[in-house]
């Protein structure tokens, strides 16, 4: 059974990355019917008929999503390989909890590993995005 990750990448959606292939790092995270999943552990059959959002679907034209813009402004991305999954994890968190505490941000991103940042600029970016986002569209 093909993995959702491979099908997405073969379709040219290479923003979804493979970091470990065993669901530990979160670099392959996508939203499946709005829920954050590791696409490396998702058999294609589980995605049948589902709405999938990858990093490519987050920005509209040249307008970055508020989370992407805050990552850019706050230094939340370094090497960039964890970034697509991390951004989607942050979007997913803010949809569930539009006003998270820093502890809630830590917990919300705990399934996404970043080796570059020590997470500090990422927390700052998520909290900044939260400040900028109109609650209704969070």
């Amino acid at each position, binding site marked *: 059974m093909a993995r959702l990750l491979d099908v997405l990448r073969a379709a040219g959606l290479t923003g979804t990355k493979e970091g470990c292939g065993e669901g*530990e790092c979160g670099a392959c995270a996508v939203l499946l019917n709005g829920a954050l999943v590791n696409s490396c552990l998702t058999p294609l059959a589980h995605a049948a008929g589902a709405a999938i959002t990858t*990093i490519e679907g987050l920005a509209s034209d040249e307008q*970055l999503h508020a989370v992407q813009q805050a990552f850019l402004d706050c230094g939340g991305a370094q090497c960039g390989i964890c970034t*697509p999954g991390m951004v989607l994890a942050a979007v997913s968190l803010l949809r569930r909890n539009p006003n998270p505490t820093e502890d809630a941000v*830590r917990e919300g991103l705990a399934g996404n590993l970043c080796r570059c940042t020590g997470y500090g600029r990422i927390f700052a970016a998520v909290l900044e995005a939260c400040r900028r986002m109109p609650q209704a569209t969070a």
Partner: protein
Amino acid sequence: MQPGAGGSAVRREGRAKLTGRALYVDDVAPPGLIHGVTIRSPVSRGTIRGLRFDPSLDWSEYTIVTAADIPGINIVKLIADDQPYLADRVVQHAEEPVLLVAHPDPMRAEAARRLITIDIDPLPPVLSMDEASEEFKRYSVVKGDVDRALSAADLVVVEGDYSTGAQEQLYIEPNGMIAVADREHGGVTVWGSMQCPYYIHGALAALLNLPEARVRVVQMETGGGFGGKEEYPTIIAGHAALLAWKSGRPVKMIYGRSEDMASTTKRHPSRTRHRTAVTRDGQLVAMDIDFMLDGGAYCTLSPVVLSRGTIHAAGPYDCPNVRVRGRVVKTNVPPHGAFRGFGAPQSIFALERQMDRVAQAVGLDPAEFRRRNFVRNGDTLAVGQTIREPVDMHALLQRALTLSGFAAKRAAFARANPSARVRKGIGLATFMHGAGFTGSGEVHLASVVTVEGAADGGVRVLAASTEIGQGTNTIFSQIAAEALGLEIDDIEIAQPDTAVVPNSGPTVASRTCMVVGKLVESAATGIRRTLVDSGYLPSTYTRAQFHHACERYIARFGDLRSTSQYTPPPNVRWDDETYTGDAYATYAWAAYVAEVSVDLVTWEIHVDDFVAVQEVGRVINPTLATGQIEGGVAQGIGWALYEDVVWREGRMANAQMTNYIMPTSMDLPPIRVYFEEVPYAGGPGGAKGIGELPMDGAAPAIFNAVADATDVDPRDLPLTPERLLSLWAARHA
């Protein structure tokens, strides 16, 4: 308008990374691609008897490469000529590459791994430093007379042994390369994840017996390196190129996570023995240091790693008698290699834990003991380097103590701990880190940067220095923009491609900002000078005037280029023969404080707060610089507490993210970062190196904090719950 140097300009390639458009090596697929895999030795040492191919597979579908197929020299070009691309007669370590296979279908390429048997007559391997008899390199640093000083009466002498384990770089993008070969015309091109395009460039020419002009190496977006993509990518590029050469088709080799962890380089394990003599009032009299690294089965970069570790082993202290003996030994484990800090974190860990133990032996507070011994402007380090810059370790330490509430917390914890299940402690480390290559390294590299102006007024920086997440693109843009009085968006950073960019040296050793950045600054200044001297540009000008001047100059002369090559700053001298002199043009200086909780039931250690105060010269981009420090401290916390490479018969037994544990967002404290800025004349806009420094201080500060929280004396890293429990049990038996 974005600021020049000194401003937190946003990352140049940030938008591409945030939208998923940035292209990493596995994101591209040239037509006709085949997928390569590496078949590796299952044993640590032995003689190859032969290869067996399972007849159930149609091997005619596969491209197969062994050592016999290599057109040039089967030696990875680095320091010692000892490592083959493909083992020929003997294997020296488990996971050593023996042959390569490729197939158009990646699943079938993978399947071949299980259907090839390498018959090997095993030989007894050397699997620990204790058993090792061969040395790759040895260094000795001597100042004063340690033996005589130690024999003096009325001194307090403290001894201690310290050890550190291997650490996996764990960049989240595994290694990968694509190669295309043109046998007819004799040429090869590789694209991939790497730190050092010109290392690969020179190596491929020798491997394929091609002129260097027929080899092209292009860096793709690179998902982290930390040293792990300094030397090993040369081997992967060589493998991909060999398969491409034989098959005539484009070849992609992407390592899976387990293969990457088990096979590629890690931080050298170390063992350090200290004997320190101090007066009863805490003045250092003698430091006798024996520093040993496990190099693994081949030399790779071990001599240079050893050199940095040896030179940093005595720290930022003024001591009249110092002896450091450094050596790196050969074992039959996969070769260890570059990892952020490059030997210094190992020797600094030992020293800073030792310094706390010495302070305790003479009844001094750890901060006060260090204060009495800090090196100052005009003092001479053990290696013979006189510090000629303002250095104020006292101020850095004081700021770290104040910001962390060190004294008050230490007292409060001491009161609360006896009755607490969760003990608390606070500890510190003070240290320095040399920027740029060690010794005469920069002189030998003789790095080159070119800046060129275009007719539309755009300016392009040509350098082989790679963006690996640390911010090369952005700081080079800031430096060039400031030198030319332009905006950041006027500057383009060329993709590192050996067909286009000159050799600005490897992206390592905290040298990109300070050394290469200085060349960017001076080459950019050369563009301005050319335009001004030729009369096309007034000495003060607007952006529009600059653009117009470029257009007119290029219309008249054809092109507008300025090249700068490294020359050492005045008065920086190093003697390779005697191993003395100015080991580094300059150092970054730092004082770090860690606060920990130690749970006496679960034996977990959690870092609750972390203060990192450092002087790195002028900070070019505060956001990027803060990110460098936070990320380095995080790796240091991982090294100290969580990251345990488990060896079983010379192989990494936990080569998976599932059971090799790096810090998650839940594991790290707030990392509070502060900079003192003392401009350094040898760096662009006054900047020094920064990338490796933060790797040095976290582990010893944490160990000192654990010693403060408990009454155990931890000296072996990583300090896992199991280790802490056994220390406690031994103490309270």
